[in-house]
Each structure stands twice: as C-alpha cells, then as structure tokens.
C-alpha cells in the first residue's frame, strides 16, 4: 500500500509542476512587443566574451527601440546565461523558445555552445544568428542557423597568405589554445595553407584558457628561431603572451586573428604587441560610416571602446532587426527567409552578405597594431 502512496505523491507533484507550467505559458508575449532571445556566457570562465557580445546586442536593440521599434512594436531582449557550459546552452535555448516564446535567437561566441544550441533552434524552426562562432559546422546544422562572421577555413588561410606573400615569412611557430575550438580550427587551417604555400611550421605549442605563464612554451619556440609566431587566441591571453615573449627576448612578429580585437589588447600588451598583425572584421580608422557610428555610440553608452565581439554582437542584432523590418509578417519562417536574403548590409564590421550556406561573405581586414590604434594594412578576399 505504501508504494501506492508514493506513486500518488509523485502524481501530485506532477500536477503542481503542470500548474506552474500552465501559469508560465499564460504569460504570453504582449501584443505590442517583439521578443528576441539571447544566450551567452554571462558568468563563468568565459564571462568576458558573453558580456562583450551582450553590450553590442543591447546597443543595437536600444538604438532601434529609441527609433520607434519595428512596425510600431518595441523589441524585448531576453538574455539567458549559460555559464560557459554546453549543456546549459541547450537548456536555456529550450527555455527561450518554449517558455519565453521568442521569435529569434542570438548567440553564442564559442562554437561548442552554438553547436549545442543550433539543433534545437533548427528543430523548433526559430532563426538563430551566431555573432562570432567561426566553426563551419555551426551553420551546417540547418537552414535556420546563420552567422555574421568569417569561418575558420577563410580566416586561417588569409593569415597564411598574408604571412607568406606580404610579409615574406618562411618559418612560423604556432601557439594555440587547447581548450578553445576557435583556436584549434584557426590554427589547423593556417598551418595547412602555410605549408601549401611552401612555408615551414617550426614549432607548435599549446596552452589552456586561463593560464598565465607561457614562458615554457615561448622558450621552446625561441629555440627554433621563428620569424613569426601565429597566436590564434583571444585578447585575454594574447597580451600576456606578447609581454612574456618580449621578456624572453623573442623578436618574432606576432600574428593573430579576430579574437585579438579589443582595447584590452593594448592595455595589457602595451609595447609588446606593437607591430603585430591580425585579421579583423574592420579597421577602427575605416571610413565606413556604420563603423564610426557604432564606435561613437558604443563609447557614449558604455564609456569604453568596443571590442570585436561587441561589434559582431551589434551586427548580428542589426541584421536580425533589419530582416524583421523587411519581413511581411513577424513569424520565424518569414524572418528566416528575409535573413537569407541579407545582401550588402552596412554593418559595424563592414559590408555583410549572407551566402547560400548562411555564412557571411566579407573580406578580412589585415591590421597592424600601431600605438593604441589599429593601422589598416590590406584587404584580403577569399
């Protein structure tokens, strides 16, 4: 008999749970607001990336709301934190879709978490735009997943070509982040292309996100006498790596990718990053009006300069809002169709066209660190 009671208790609990859900579902979106979901790593080890992206997204949405919203409706952004864990990313995307009833999703920086979330967006047929996941697999999940940044197979070879053709380098060392798929992807494609062009990778060393001592790896690299070191990593580590490299007397040129772009790079790296080159979405001195406006508005709102992730977040949100404006009706399917048609969008990171594979077609700016500014060097296409 006692078992029966247990089952009854569980059923009662189930009923309570059901009642709670029903109440939540009753919380349907108000008629005059459009709900957009965002998921990112707002806390945890990669919180700085999530928070940076969030700033760009918020700037875009606030600007739009101040200008009257879309079709007379205000936009409501619902941001959920995934603590940098893939399984949390899956859960929060489900929450955004099934509980908050968002009609589009923005996120994530890391490809691992975008890949955990993308199948869910695809399954529920909700358009998802990732601002800065560079792994090609992300948009291959399905026709509802878009991105507004380069992919690794583009950016890696671009840097390899630049190193080989423009800088005339022959011997390059690689220092990559073992914990980051972004870093691994970029490093693989760079190495492949560089070897193809006849260059030599003299040393390949690894570190892990969060490390603060790189002298062991750098001493190893020093012994192979490279002309340059390719560091596909984020600005959080690059500044430190550069400083320690210079302390060890390494004079090699430092090369990197879009993860470098942040005012923090100069702040932490100081003189050590001077003269380095990296591929970026834009150059801050770019005459492009959208870029200049973005930088100005960002500084006015947050009292600091934007980094590359903020710019990508801003563009992802802007492209989404733009598609919503063009869409005949505000349904996920209509927004998806308009997203796919995005052409020559004038974003903070340059002209963006969404191609047939739902990736962004845009050229890479090669910039050189010069004092506290990024000097535009050249523009490289695919």
């Amino acid at each position, binding site marked *: 008999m006692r078992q029966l009671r247990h089952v009854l208790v569980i059923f009662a609990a189930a009923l309570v749970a059901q009642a709670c859900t029903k109440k939540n579902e009753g919380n349907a979106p108000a008629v005059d607001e459009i709900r957009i979901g965002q998921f990112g790593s707002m806390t945890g080890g990669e919180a700085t990336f999530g928070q940076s992206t969030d700033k760009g997204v918020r700037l875009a949405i606030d600007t739009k709301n101040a200008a009257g919203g879309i079709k007379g409706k205000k936009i409501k952004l619902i941001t959920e934190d995934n603590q940098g864990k893939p399984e949390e990313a899956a859960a929060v995307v489900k929450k955004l879709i099934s509980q908050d009833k968002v009609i589009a999703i923005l996120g994530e920086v890391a490809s691992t978490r975008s890949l955990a979330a993308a199948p869910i967006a695809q399954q529920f047929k909700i358009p998802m735009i990732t601002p800065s996941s560079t792994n090609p697999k992300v948009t291959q999940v399905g026709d509802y997943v878009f991105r507004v940044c380069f992919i690794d197979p583009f950016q890696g070879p671009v840097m390899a070509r630049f190193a080989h053709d423009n800088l005339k380098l022959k011997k390059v060392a690689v220092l990559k982040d073992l914990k980051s798929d972004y870093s691994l992807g970029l490093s693989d494609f760079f190495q492949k292309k560089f070897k193809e062009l006849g260059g030599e990778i003299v040393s390949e060393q690894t570190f892990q996100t969060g490390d603060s001592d790189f002298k*062991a790896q750098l001493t190893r690299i020093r012994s192979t006498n490279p002309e340059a070191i390719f560091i596909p990593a984020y600005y959080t580590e690059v500044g430190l790596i550069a400083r320690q490299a210079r302390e060890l007397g390494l004079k090699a040129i430092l090369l990197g990718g879009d993860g470098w772009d942040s005012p923090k790079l100069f702040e932490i790296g100081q003189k050590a990053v001077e003269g380095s080159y990296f591929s970026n979405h834009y150059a801050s001195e770019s005459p492009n009006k959208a870029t200049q406006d973005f930088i100005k508005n960002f500084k006015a709102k947050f009292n600091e300069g934007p980094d590359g992730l903020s710019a990508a977040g801003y563009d992802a949100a802007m492209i989404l809002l733009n598609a919503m404006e063009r869409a005949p009706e505000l349904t996920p399917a209509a927004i998806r169709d308009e997203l796919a048609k995005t052409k020559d969008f004038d974003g903070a990171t340059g002209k963006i066209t969404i191609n047939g594979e739902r990736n962004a077609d845009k050229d890479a700016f090669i910039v050189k660190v010069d004092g506290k500014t990024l000097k535009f060097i050249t523009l490289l296409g695919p």
Partner: protein
Amino acid sequence: MEEFLQHIINGLNLGAGYALIALGYTMVYGILQMINFAHSEVYMIGAFSAFYGSRFFNLTEHPGWGSFFAALALAIVACSSLGLLIERFAYRPLRNSPKTNALITAIGVSLFLQFSGQVVFGADPKLFPSVLEDYALWTYGNVQLRLFDVTILSVACVAMLLLNFFIQRTRVGTAMRAVSFSFRSATLMGINVNTIIMVTFIVGSALAGVGSVLLGLKYSKIDPLMGTLIGLKAFVAAVLGGIGNLPGAVVGGLLMGLSEEMVVAYLSSTYRDALAFGLLIFILLVKPSGLFGQSKVEKV
C-alpha cells in the same frame, strides 16, 4: 645548455608563485586540518584591492619601491580583513561539525567570491597597475634573470623562514601548534582557540595579499577567476610537499613549477596539466603524507 638554464629559471619562477600561495593553504591546514578553498579568491581580492587602491591614490604615477610597498600594504590589509571575515562568519559556526561541511562551506565561499567578483568588478581582464618597473638583472646570452623573478622567489623563501620562526619560536606560534595538536587541550592550557585561529587566518591571508601584488606585477593581468587555476595548483603543491609543513609547501611549489616547465620543454605542452596531477598522484601513492609530511599512526 642555454635553453636548459632558461627552463630552470622559468620553472623556479613559476614554482615560486605556487609556493607563495601554497604557504597560505598549508598554514590554515596545519592548524585547522581544513582545506581553505577560498584562499585563491582571497588572493584575487588582494589583487583587485591593490588595483583600485593604486588608482585611488594615483600610485602608478610614481612607480618605485614606495608605491610598491603602498600597494602591498593595501593588498595585505584587504586580504587579512577578508580572511578574518570569512573565518568569523563562515568557518567558525562550523568548527564542531564534520570536516566535509567545512570543506563544502569553503567551496561555497570560494564560489561566492568568484561570482560576486564577476558582478562587481566585471569579468573582463584588467591591467594590474605597474607600481614597479621590471627589468633584467642579469643576462647571459639568451638567458635572463629578471627583477620580479628574483623578488618572488626570495619573498617566498623569506616568508617561509619567518613563518617557521614565528611558529617554532614565539608564544603565539607555540599556541598555534598547541591548537593544531588538539583544540581541547589547548583550551585547557588557557589558550584562546578562536584568537589563535584568527591570527592564523590573518597571517595566511596576508601571504595571499603579498602573492597577489607580486604575481599581479609579474603577469600584469587580473580578472575575477585568476585565483582558480593557480589556487588549485598551489594547493596540489602544498599536498605534494606534505600539507601543514611550511618548507614542504615551498619545495612542493618549486617542484611543481619545475616539472611543469620540463614537461613542456622536453615532452609536449599538451600534457602539462595532466602531468602536474600525475606527479601528485605518484608521490601520494609512494608516500601518502607528501614529501615532508608526517604520517599519522592511528591508534585503536
């Protein structure tokens, strides 16, 4: 040969950082038999208080030893008061409950400080104020010995010697050892156990403060999660040397640093962290109480 020498220097410096933090772990463990997981966060708070303090007092405008000591004092005061607060409000209520509870609370405090740090300071990395300029003291070919490296190593050793003197020779130190031996007997001998534990936390946290300024200057980047990795490794170093044993912490730290460096230098950088733990497991299996720890014989 030059490379090898450079690796030795790098390894010792890396290890000196671990050693400095490990001393704090070992102090608290020696007295309370409790892993103070929050120690690495005290270290983080120390770095941030030096950061905000030197901004407030404009210390970076006059880099030099004066500013350095001012920043050091700021960090020490902040860390000691934080350590005291943690002891008073989180650990003391649990003094008589099972050890696991104290451990969970320590983890709770550590998480609390990490996440509050991310809310209050922001998660983005910040530049530690350069209150002192680093330069190469000695150069031989490619091999370099820098000011901060020498400072950190010598501070770790001096701190270890001073603490050893403090614990072995002074009245308070004797009381500490008594408390470590048995709370009850210490109380019966007229020792105020709570005061002694507070002193332990003040000293241990002050060490974290010293470490935060020195390592902050050396690595120049601080963020709310800066303590986790170095804290874990420093703790492993303390266990390696025999936790509760001060010279053990320093030797353990240096050993950790050297072995990590050598793994990268002569094997592969990918297995750096795994080997740090592998070393620990190996030593604990061969000598369960660590290199210098005393094994306790359990009596029935």
